[in-house]
């Protein structure tokens, strides 16, 4: 790991001249938006893009007489393309800050480069535990979540609700294992027992049927899963079709019943339990106002992806206001972010100076039928959930 530090330092030295020399108090503040506009996560990228635009519309496109310009770059949902895109933003477009990143693979790829270039990066989704843990950086701030943060309290809670045995299932990749391992730890510590687990290969699973047959044979009290997007829709539907819905409680990291997918799962989703940092049904004036605005603009419920992106814009504007629009001293911007506190659509949040990860509420929600539609209703709130430093020494 020593080589990494030398490399980072050398990179920093090489790049400093390029980035700071370009900053100029009279010119616009340039913010790089690094999202997948194409590739598998293209849809989520556009969702966050729209919310970031909405955020800057609401909180200001000007700070201390300097306009804010957004420069967009496509990660194509691929780590190497993401790295090329962030280099382009920092070297070619000479942005002052970078905001975005959906996939943990891309975040892992750009981490060293961003760290070395000393450009503040505000992560709007990717939840790699180590980025605000072992591999944390003073330049990388996360407004979304860490994978562990989402599910940590869910294990003990499920055990407390009387579920004695669980079957774990997630795609076979780093995020999937991080979620499952964290859940297992809490669940077992509270007396629960894991009776089986399955990790289908990511992206190649065409059919959950074979795994459902496996779950059936294991006969657990609950199945705890982490699936998002298309697979989340598919899983809930197949779950019902295989007759599992009335026999085993389906639960998981909350992308299972998130705003983007739950309506497409329809009646099959009713009863599903999930834990997430945001649900549209959160009953606060801030959330109602935001949802109304988002629905008016896009004709559908705003999601946790939108909220994280929207809050990121607010965090950036607030921090820039605190530094008086000065972008020469990048460390001062990050420091200002630590002092920002506000209540957004998802509730109160602030950035943990120990890890640069967000401190926020995590909600447990259960899907219920509402008329001929469905929605996730909040059942429980874990307030101000904060990650332990996990080896981060900021």
């Amino acid at each position, binding site marked *: 790991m020593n080589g990494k530090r030398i490399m980072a330092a050398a990179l920093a030295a090489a790049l400093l001249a390029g980035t700071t020399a370009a900053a100029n108090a009279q010119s616009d503040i340039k913010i790089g938006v690094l999202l997948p506009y194409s590739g598998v996560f293209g849809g989520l990228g556009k969702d966050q893009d729209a919310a970031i635009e909405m955020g800057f519309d609401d909180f200001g496109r000007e700070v201390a007489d300097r306009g804010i310009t957004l420069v967009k770059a496509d990660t194509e949902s691929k780590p190497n393309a993401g790295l090329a895109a962030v280099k382009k933003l920092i070297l070619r477009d000479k942005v002052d800050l970078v905001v975005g990143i959906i996939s943990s693979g891309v975040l892992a790829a750009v981490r060293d480069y961003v760290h070395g270039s000393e450009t503040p990066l505000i992560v709007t989704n990717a939840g790699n535990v180590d980025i605000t843990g072992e591999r944390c950086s003073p330049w990388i701030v996360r407004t979304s979540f860490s994978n562990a943060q989402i599910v940590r309290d869910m294990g003990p809670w499920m055990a407390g609700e009387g579920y004695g045995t669980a079957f774990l299932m997630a795609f076979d990749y780093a995020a999937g294992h991080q979620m499952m391992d964290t859940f297992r730890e809490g669940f077992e510590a509270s007396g629960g027992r894991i009776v089986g687990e399955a990790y289908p290969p990511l992206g190649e699973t065409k059919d959950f049927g074979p795994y459902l047959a496996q779950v059936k044979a294991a006969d657990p009290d609950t199945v705890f899963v982490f699936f998002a997007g298309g697979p989340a829709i598919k899983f809930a539907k197949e779950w019902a079709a295989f007759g599992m819905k009335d026999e085993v409680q389906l639960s998981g990291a909350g992308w299972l019943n998130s705003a983007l*997918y739950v309506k497409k799962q329809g009646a099959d989703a009713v009863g599903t339990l999930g834990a997430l940092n945001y649900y549209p049904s959160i009953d606060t004036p801030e959330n109602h106002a935001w949802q109304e605005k988002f629905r008016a603009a896009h004709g559908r419920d705003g999601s946790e992806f939108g909220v994280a992106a929207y809050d990121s814009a607010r965090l950036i504007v607030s921090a820039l206001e605190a530094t008086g629009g000065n972008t020469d001293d990048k460390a001062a911007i990050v420091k200002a972010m630590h002092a920002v506190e506000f209540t957004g659509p998802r509730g109160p949040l602030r950035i943990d100076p120990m890890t640069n990860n967000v401190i926020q509420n995590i909600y447990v929600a259960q899907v219920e039928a509402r008329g001929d539609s469905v929605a996730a209703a909040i059942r429980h709130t874990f307030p101000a959930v904060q990650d332990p430093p996990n080896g981060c020494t900021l």
Partner: protein
Amino acid sequence: MLLDPGFLIVQTLNGLQLSMLLFLLSIGLSVVFGMMNFINLAHGTLYMVGAYLALSSVRWFDSYWVALVLAPLGVALIGAVFYAVLLRHMQRQSPMRQVLVTFGLIFVGFDAVRMVWGALPHTIPIPAALDGSVTVFGEIYPTYRLFIIALGVTVLIALHFGLERTRLGAVVRAGVDDRRMVAALGIDVERAFFLVFCLGCWLAGLAGVVSAPVFSIFPGMDMSILILTLIVVVVGGPGSLKGAVVGSFVIGMVDTYGQVLAPELARVTIYALMAAVLLVRPQGLFPVSQAH
């Protein structure tokens, strides 16, 4: 797990259902290869477009059954246009060039569906008549999946009789064996190619429609199925109807059971199986004699 009869029943049905889906996809690909000596890499794209057309049909007409009729026809139409505009003019060029054109179409198709239908995943509802589950040998199993199996078997039987009993079938069988000979007999091979190609596209579209209610519809659904289909074709022996049937069955079963019984190898089993088959039988399980 293997001793649990419930597991075996459900898993075998799952395997059969995947086999049938693969059969619908691989048969068109394989026969086209047998006759025209080129592999259509955009076959998965046709499958994806079939699923998306089904989505649109369901939105407009609010009926799965209309989609089941319209979407495969739409895909066949796209295939016909593709054949008329591009492939027909490339007949005399090296097959590799045709393969490359279809490779380029994968990229075009992927972005085209994103432009038209967006990048977020969609599903269509299972038709009311097939929604719910039935009990098979004491196990609850989704009715719709049984429908897929039945549909695959129906298509299999229809194709078998079509090939054995009809004039087009005779031309196809002869064309796979020796294309020049058929042409020399004064038969319009060109027209037979065209019809077979369109039929292959129709079947890919059909596979897309029937899988839409079970799997979610998203840009990129084409690639995973394409690679699996290619493996079926290669394992079975390109050009062989029997090969497509047996290949689909073998791959469908191995994939379904392998995922659960050897999860550590889930990504590798199928590829290893193909490599093994090719080592023992470099032309696939049921090689077609390549007289031309």
